[in-house]
């Protein structure tokens, strides 16, 4: 099972290349890019919006479509960063610094082509690493008991709340809110009703998708109410897409370094693509002999971050598939998608449904290649969409939010939950409460609760028992050290910066 299983991979490739799966991948890539180019709507929003519809295609095609959406949204974000100086999502902020400057110098086409190529190279390297790493991680996780999984969730919560948002207390508050929302409905162990307030509809619980669609999709639409339309876009002609030989040569190193930085970042809980892109930008500037020219249109400052954020997306899938724990909000959405298809990510996935994993991996190669072929000629179209007036885009996104929430269970409750999540999410985000920990809390809630109750039962006579288990102890210590050293230092650095 360990390492790269060529036979299984080839089977996955054959499955992913079937007409239905290729169609789903194509649809995912196009829709993902369309949502990704809209300012503020990143991969998490794009995947949340597409999640209810992906169910229609069955497990394989549905998940392949989601992989396409994820990739497409990431690519769409970089397009607007370069052409309009508006990052589609946080991971593309670093790209704006030099990407838009390249566009102003008439090198927008070259920047976009190099980003696509660099992302493709880094993405391919990261997929190879994932193929080797996820099954190995899964075999390690087979020895995990409830206390280890509980400690892993705790580690994930501490790191995630520490790295996302302006204040850790606000991040933790959102996380706890997510955990609480996951407990609404029938208790799976005792059958008791919890926090249903006498409503029969609430007995089935609060679904994660309407909340995510509201808090990421609708809240973003509401935020844009008071924001003026995007500015003018740089024009790109197809013949301008060819980078010069010098630009191509200079992009090789950043792309390879970006792959390594990105994949490693994905293995750590938190906003991996954003962290990876800034880390890569910083590394490229540090090692460049022309570091003073960064910010004026350096190829390295565009290719490095974009390669890194692409690789980070894939790296974040290793803990999801190997451990069954999402380390990022986007991975949490994918986990919800897997569960909707009755696929449980985690160590047993490689025994129970290995075909799903390998088809997904193969689909990522295909989505990567599809983006390269499809999006370069369509760059001008996507830029036009990104700079369309608000009254064209936002009503359409609002309608998608409504339909997306309703199609989960065809229940009006989900519409009201989505609308409430959008309004409450808008006001909470204005006060600096980040939405990502809430999403992770909601997805990880049932798992954390199950492991919490089992751990309490198993060690009822000796509360210190879990700390005698080496993996549990290491994870708890890692969480404490991370909190005391990394989070404090990072926050001090941010305040001083």
């Amino acid at each position, binding site marked *: 099972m360990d390492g790269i299983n060529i036979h299984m991979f080839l089977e996955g490739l054959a499955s992913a290349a079937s007409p239905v799966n290729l169609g789903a991948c194509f*649809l995912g890539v196009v829709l993902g890019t369309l949502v990704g180019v809209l300012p503020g709507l990143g991969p998490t929003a794009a995947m949340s919006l597409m999640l209810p*519809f992906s169910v*229609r295609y069955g497990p394989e095609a549905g998940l392949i479509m989601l992989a396409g959406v994820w990739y497409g949204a990431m690519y769409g974000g970089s397009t607007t960063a370069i052409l309009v100086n508006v990052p589609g999502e946080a991971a593309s902020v670093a790209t704006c610094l030099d990407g838009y400057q390249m566009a102003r110098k008439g090198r927008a086409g070259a920047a976009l082509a190099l980003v696509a190529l660099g992302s493709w190279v880094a993405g391919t390297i990261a997929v190879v690493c994932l193929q080797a790493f996820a099954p190995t991680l899964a075999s390690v996780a087979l020895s995990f008991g409830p206390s280890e999984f509980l400690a892993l969730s705790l580690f994930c919560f501490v790191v995630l709340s520490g790295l996302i948002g302006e*204040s850790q*207390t*606000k991040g*933790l*508050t959102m996380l*706890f*809110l997510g*955990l*609480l929302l996951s*407990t609404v409905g029938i*208790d799976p*162990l*005792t059958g*008791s009703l*919890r*926090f249903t307030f006498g409503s029969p509809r609430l007995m089935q619980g609060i679904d994660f998708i309407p909340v995510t669609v509201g808090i990421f999709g*609708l809240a973003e*639409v*509401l935020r844009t*109410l*008071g924001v003026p339309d995007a500015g003018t876009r740089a024009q790109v002609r197809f013949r301008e897409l060819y980078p010069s030989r010098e630009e191509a040569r200079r992009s090789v190193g950043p792309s390879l370094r970006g792959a390594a930085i990105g994949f490693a970042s994905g293995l750590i809980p938190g906003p991996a693509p954003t962290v990876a892109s800034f880390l890569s930008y910083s590394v490229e500037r540090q090692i460049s002999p022309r570091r003073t020219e960064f910010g004026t249109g350096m190829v390295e400052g565009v290719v490095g971050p974009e390669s890194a954020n692409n690789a980070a997306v894939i790296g974040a899938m290793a803990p999801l598939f190997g451990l069954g724990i999402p380390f990022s909000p986007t991975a949490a959405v994918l986990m919800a998608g897997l569960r909707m298809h009755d696929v449980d990510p985690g160590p047993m996935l490689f025994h129970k449904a290995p075909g799903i994993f390998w088809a997904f991996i193969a689909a990522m190669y295909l989505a990567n290649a599809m983006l390269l072929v499809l999006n370069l000629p369509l760059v001008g179209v996507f830029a036009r969409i990104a700079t369309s*007036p*608000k*009254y*064209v885009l*936002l*009503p*359409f996104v*609002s*309608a*998608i*939010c*409504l*339909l997306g929430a*309703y*199609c989960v269970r065809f229940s*009006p409750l989900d*519409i009201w939950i989505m*609308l409430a999540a*959008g*309004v409450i999410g*808008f006001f909470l985000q*204005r006060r600096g409460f980040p939405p990502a920990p809430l999403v992770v809390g909601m997805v990880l809630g049932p798992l*954390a*609760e199950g492991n*919490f*109750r089992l751990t*309490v*039962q198993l060690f*009822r*006579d000796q509360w210190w028992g879990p700390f005698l288990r080496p993996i549990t102890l290491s994870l708890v210590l890692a969480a404490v050290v991370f909190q005391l050293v990394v989070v404090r230092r990072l926050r001090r650095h941010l305040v001083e910066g």
Partner: protein
Amino acid sequence: MLGAGVLVSSFGLGVGSPASPGPGAFPATVGLLMLVTALIGVVGACKDGRTVAASEGELRRTTREIIGAIAPLVSWYPLLPVTGYVLATFFVVLAEAKVFGAKGWVRSFAVALASAGLLYVLFDLLFYIDLPRGPLG
């Protein structure tokens, strides 16, 4: 407040014993952690001397804008059984386009028509989702 409320409600559900944790055990733990986090936040805010920055006028304007944008969306579900999803979406997008600053009815009408058409293609022809169609059949 929420943490305290959850804590009290969770005890009402029954926290059980270590040998058999009840349905309220996990929510009670989360409620307690929420309460502690809120207290840390309040103490931190008092220490830093932070105050709420938004003015009352700004808040009122924002609330008015939000209500204006949400009202058409609220009407979508009541319209659904009467008009079907294509027409309901058309009316919602028409109203939203005005909210988001479309000048004149022709532009709003064009946006609503295009959006409803595109959503029909997506939902009916690509996703095969069976939604109420109303008079359009």
